[in-house]
């Protein structure tokens, strides 16, 4: 019984993290056709930002979260403006530029903090027990705030004018432009939103994770698997795909021998199996071939 609770908790937490990351990655791809491989590097930066504010400056973690989100979002928008926007027509160049950007962030962080493992204390300490399993308040907090932000994002995209502009640009850039939507501005706002989501994820995950400069690699792969599984550009797909892979990982880790090594393989195999049956992902729309 305890095992089941463990699996549920671990699945829900990693599912929410993947969902937040995947949605951010997905919207910037939809709007600007940028495959932002530095997405999880921003998540790593936010986590370090919180470490600096709470551990080095000794301030309240809430300030840390705020600082992390604002600073990293600014950094994301600046790097979009300076580095990615000028070469946006060249898809390959953009791709490599984002990899290079992620490497730069990783190296700068390992120069400042060295490659040692760091950790940040929980925002709310303490735990309660269900059926003999410890559930930390921090885990509950991470899960709930992830759900809240996703709900907020849903309202923003579906109910506001900017959200409408983002969705229509994602659907058809040229027609959106003809309807008077400032495409460059929408791309900028979307980049901010996307990096903001990544930094928020970093902020709520950092007390549960180990902090190190290479921590962006594994979530990057899982995030991309989620995006492909759910269907590119589909928020619902990313959400459901994230929980599928989150639970798959949790099941493998707790039930299979050598689970910690196999969890990635199993999740990725699920993605491939789904793609063989449905090449456009679970909720993706099969586009007419772009010519």
């Amino acid at each position, binding site marked *: 019984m305890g095992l089941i609770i463990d699996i549920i908790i671990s699945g829900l937490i990693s599912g929410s993290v993947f969902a937040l990351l995947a949605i951010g990655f997905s919207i910037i791809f939809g709007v600007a056709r940028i495959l932002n491989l530095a997405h999880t590097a921003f998540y790593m930066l936010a986590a370090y930002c919180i470490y600096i504010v709470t551990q080095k400056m000794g301030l309240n973690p809430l300030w840390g979260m705020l600082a992390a989100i604002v600073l990293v979002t600014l950094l994301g928008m600046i790097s979009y403006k300076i580095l990615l926007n000028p070469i946006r027509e060249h898809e390959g*160049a953009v791709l490599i530029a984002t990899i290079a950007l992620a490497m*730069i962030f990783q*190296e700068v962080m390992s120069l400042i903090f060295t490659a040692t493992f760091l950790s940040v204390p929980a925002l709310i300490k303490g735990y309660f027990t269900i059926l003999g399993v410890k559930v930390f308040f921090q885990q509950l907090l991470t899960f709930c705030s992830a759900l809240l932000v996703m709900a907020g994002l849903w309202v923003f995209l579906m109910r506001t004018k900017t959200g409408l502009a983002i969705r229509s640009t994602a659907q058809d850039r040229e027609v959106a432009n003809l309807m008077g939507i400032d495409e460059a501005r929408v791309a900028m706002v979307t980049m901010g939103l996307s990096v903001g989501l990544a930094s928020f994820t970093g902020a709520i995950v950092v007390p549960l994770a180990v902090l190190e400069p290479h921590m962006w690699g594994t979530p990057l792969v899982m995030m991309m698997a989620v995006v492909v599984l759910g269907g590119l550009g589909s928020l619902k797909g990313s959400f459901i795909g994230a929980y599928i892979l989150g639970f798959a990982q949790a099941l493998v880790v707790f039930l299979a021998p050598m689970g910690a090594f*196999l969890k990635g393989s199993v999740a990725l195999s699920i993605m491939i199996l789904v793609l063989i049956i449905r090449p456009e992902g679970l909720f993706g729309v099969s586009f007419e071939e772009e010519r």
Partner: protein
Amino acid sequence: MGLILFYLKKLFTVLKNEVLVLPSRVAVVLFFLFLLLLPVFTKDTYLLRIFTLTSIFAILAASWDLLSGFTGQMNFGHALFFGVGAYGAAMLNLHVHIPPWASIPLGALCAVLAGLIIGIPCLRLRGTYLALTTLAFPLILLGLVFSFTDFTGGEMGISGIVRLTRSRVTDYYTVVVVMLGLCTIMWKITDSNIGIIFHAIREDELAVRAAGINTTRYKLLAFSLSGFFAGISGGLYAHFMRIAGPSTLDLSLSFSVVIYAFFGGIVTIYGPVGAVFILFPMLEFLRVVQDYRTLLFACVVLLILIYMPDGLFRWLRDKIEKECPRCKIRNIATRNTCRICTAPLD
């Protein structure tokens, strides 16, 4: 005697009329000569080792270009072919005692098999879906390598493989000659009818299918050819380093192949090869400033791509050569009229 004289004369004419007229061709000839004559001037094992490894990765980058550049099938998991080639050659050598000259091609055939296995499900996917799916395959294999440690050696990899040849210099010559040969073959493939179909698949797959060409077959052919060449480089790596470890399947290897290719300019074959010969030795020599090595590497890549988004070598080639507007033949940039049809160049 007369025959030899005839061929010498012919060689001289070709050199004068075909090679010396274009700076890019001169550069290629100089590159061949440099690689083949390097051990004559230096016996420094460190230098030879760097250039051997560079050549191995040059094959890998060129094979990526053959698949992803030419047919447009973005493969983010090219390390799969390299890793399968390396592990295949290592296991054949260690367990079946097959010498390197046979184990490397057999390992490459394993990589072809891997290419077909991933190629068949991936044929239905395109663009970003394909890129992100191919990324998954080497990582799945990596998970298996770590879980079945008694078969694969896990973290430590498979060691105790026979050396490629007896000395560093012969190692160097083997790898460099194989590299130059394979890259020439790849360039010839892309220049042939098959290469034209590959180009066309990238530009407009629907139109190619409408022209009655079985694109599925050609895409699978691209996967297997690329897998074969990448497998050879994997096998060479395993025998040269005498170890086949999990690093050959790593995400960073897949990414660096893509970096090399885009840095040099895709759809060229010479671009990725040249990029490896710039970036890989640069990364090695940056060991002087160990801590800043990757940072500087990333900055160089980023800067070059912002100013030359089509790749370094394409940019260079466009600077030193221009195309005749009438007969589409390339001319050195200093000429005012085309060297073939004497049309004025702009």
